[in-house]
């Protein structure tokens, strides 16, 4: 794929993350959940890379593996030119400050017993350097202003905040270490529509001001389309289509991407009447006994014998547009 990209901040090459399934008294391994199976992509500096897919497709596992919350089964993760897939916890520590994460559920990702200021302080002082009390206080109010919270609220507790405000605090906490890359795992899916738009706009503004890079994980194609520069569509541990975000609406090729697109709700009444709907049959197969060959074969109307034998490789169809399918 696009290798030796000078602008690349993060390169993932044939990443595999298999979790053993253990059973019985002796914890014998009886199989593997292939959560991520041979995934490669490049995230460019200052850009947003979007990962889309349904629950269980492995998109969150990719994010967690990049943060090295999981140690990958095999594959390479190159962050700013350095291989990080096998670093020890100690070696990983400075890099962890440079890659931050924003979580989906703003209700469970904040400690209910800490005030907002104290939550941010923890993230500020974690670099191990000495900090003046005043400096910390200034940084806290700077961060809160940056995400659109009133600095007076530093003494409040998470339960006093609304969902949108909590997510803003989650973003402030991620910014506290001055990261270059932020892994956003479904940052807006728990929020109301009007608040969702506010948070998306905030993320875009911060990217512009601070030159941040995002790995944006979500299941809502319209949200990802709005914020991402490049989009990868995942299905059962594989990337099935990877393209520039401007391509997806009119030029996406893979039958799964097409189905996802047709499931995206639109609010244009007249366009909706004309749109052809693709309702997929069945459900995502369990990743424990994923079918051999293309993972999408069980729900795909084009599935042929070839698809049942081997996983189709991700091939370039046009400039920067990769598709893994034999039939389209």
């Amino acid at each position: 794929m696009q290798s030796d990209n000078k602008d690349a901040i993060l390169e993932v090459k044939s990443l595999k993350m298999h979790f053993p399934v253990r059973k019985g008294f002796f914890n014998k391994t009886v199989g593997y959940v292939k959560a991520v199976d041979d995934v490669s992509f490049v995230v460019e500096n200052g850009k947003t890379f979007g990962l889309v897919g349904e629950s269980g497709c492995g998109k969150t596992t990719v994010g967690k593996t990049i943060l090295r919350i999981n140690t990958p089964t095999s594959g390479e993760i190159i962050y700013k030119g350095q291989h990080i897939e096998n670093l020890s916890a100690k070696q990983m520590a400075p890099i962890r400050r440079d890659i931050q994460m924003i979580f989906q559920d703003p209700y469970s990702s904040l400690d209910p017993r800490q005030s907002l200021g104290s939550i941010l302080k923890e993230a500020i002082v974690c670099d191990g350097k000495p900090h003046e009390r005043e400096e910390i206080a200034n940084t806290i109010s700077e961060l809160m202003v940056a995400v659109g919270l009133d600095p007076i609220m530093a003494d409040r507790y998470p339960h006093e905040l609304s969902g949108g405000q909590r997510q803003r605090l989650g973003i402030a906490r991620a910014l506290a270490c001055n990261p270059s890359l932020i892994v956003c795992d479904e940052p807006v899916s728990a929020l109301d529509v009007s608040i969702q738009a506010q948070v998306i706009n905030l993320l875009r503004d911060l990217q512009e001001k601070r030159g941040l890079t995002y790995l944006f994980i979500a299941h809502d194609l319209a949200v990802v389309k709005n914020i991402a520069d490049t989009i990868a569509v995942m299905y059962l541990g594989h990337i099935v289509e990877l393209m520039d975000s401007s391509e997806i609406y009119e030029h996406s090729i893979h039958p799964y991407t097409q189905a996802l697109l047709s499931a995206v709700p639109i609010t244009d009444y007249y366009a909706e009447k004309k749109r052809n709907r693709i309702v997929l049959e069945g459900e995502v197969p369990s990743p424990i006994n994923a079918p051999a060959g293309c993972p999408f074969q069980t729900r795909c109307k084009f599935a042929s014998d070839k698809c049942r034998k081997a996983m189709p490789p991700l091939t370039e169809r046009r400039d920067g547009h990769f598709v893994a399918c034999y039939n389209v």
Partner: protein
Amino acid sequence: MEDNRNILLEVKHLKTSFFTQAGEVKAVDDVSYYIKKGEIIAVVGESGCGKSVTQMSVMQLVQSPPGKIVGGEVIFEGQNLLEYDRNSPEMRAVRGAGIAMIFQEPMTSLNPVFKIGTQLSEVIMIHKKVDKKTAWEEGIKALEAVGIPDAKSRMENYPFQMSGGMRQRVLIAIAVACGSKLIIADEPTTALDVTTQAQVMELLQSLVKTYGTSILMVTHNLGLVTRYAERVYVMYAGKVIESGTTEDILMHPVHPYTKGLLNSVPKLDASDEERLVAIKGQPPRLSELPSYCAFYPRCPYACEECKQGYPILEEVGPNEHFCACWMKNKEVAHAE
């Protein structure tokens, strides 16, 4: 209302309040709507706008205390349900057999320690007064009707053995089995994946065609409304602020909140540089509502006139298009 015989459920000036230490919280404040036979309508709003409490009040399921239905009428098939006591046999007969409810979280609405079949046939036994064996047979038929493959062995399954989409189908099967005339679906697909979401909605729509069931969807997802609903009620802070046909609400919205809500939805065909137009601020707390339009603090068109009191729903167009806004007639103020 043009043809009364066709109206299945009519809610008139419903008011539900919660009496808390902080005072009276008007969760539902003077809400009126109706649904015809074989119609799909949608109630749209953000969390905390009272859309769920409205439906709970219709079913008399609001926890009391602190909740209380303070006023209004709920007329189902010509009978005011609020005249019945919440625990009366008449009300129980309506729940399930007359009006069924499907909730957002299919895992919590099924009992984890009983088989699907037991839970399904229990409802049939109670409402249809048949014996266990017949009920079980009818349960299998109901599961087949909602497209669950291998229904016979699925009856023996426990809820945890099924996926989210399947569980939601079981709940719909319970509604179908008793021949409910109205299904109130409270965020039926929010917990489901997008492709499963489409399956469940198609199923609900097919029920309307085959059984002539009416469906009331409660949702925050305007996209579902576009595809499935015939009419829409938009709620904000316990009140209906705009109502009309789906076409009117989506394509010619009048209320600034409806407009803002539509603008907040990311569009697939928008260019990459286009920013979302968010509604500023946050939804109000229902315990601290002003004595005037509740949208005032967030409204881009707000002016002094808006503070004269609650705007009432007034007709703004043909096809029963209503809107509650002081500024609605001032086209100039609304021109972007």
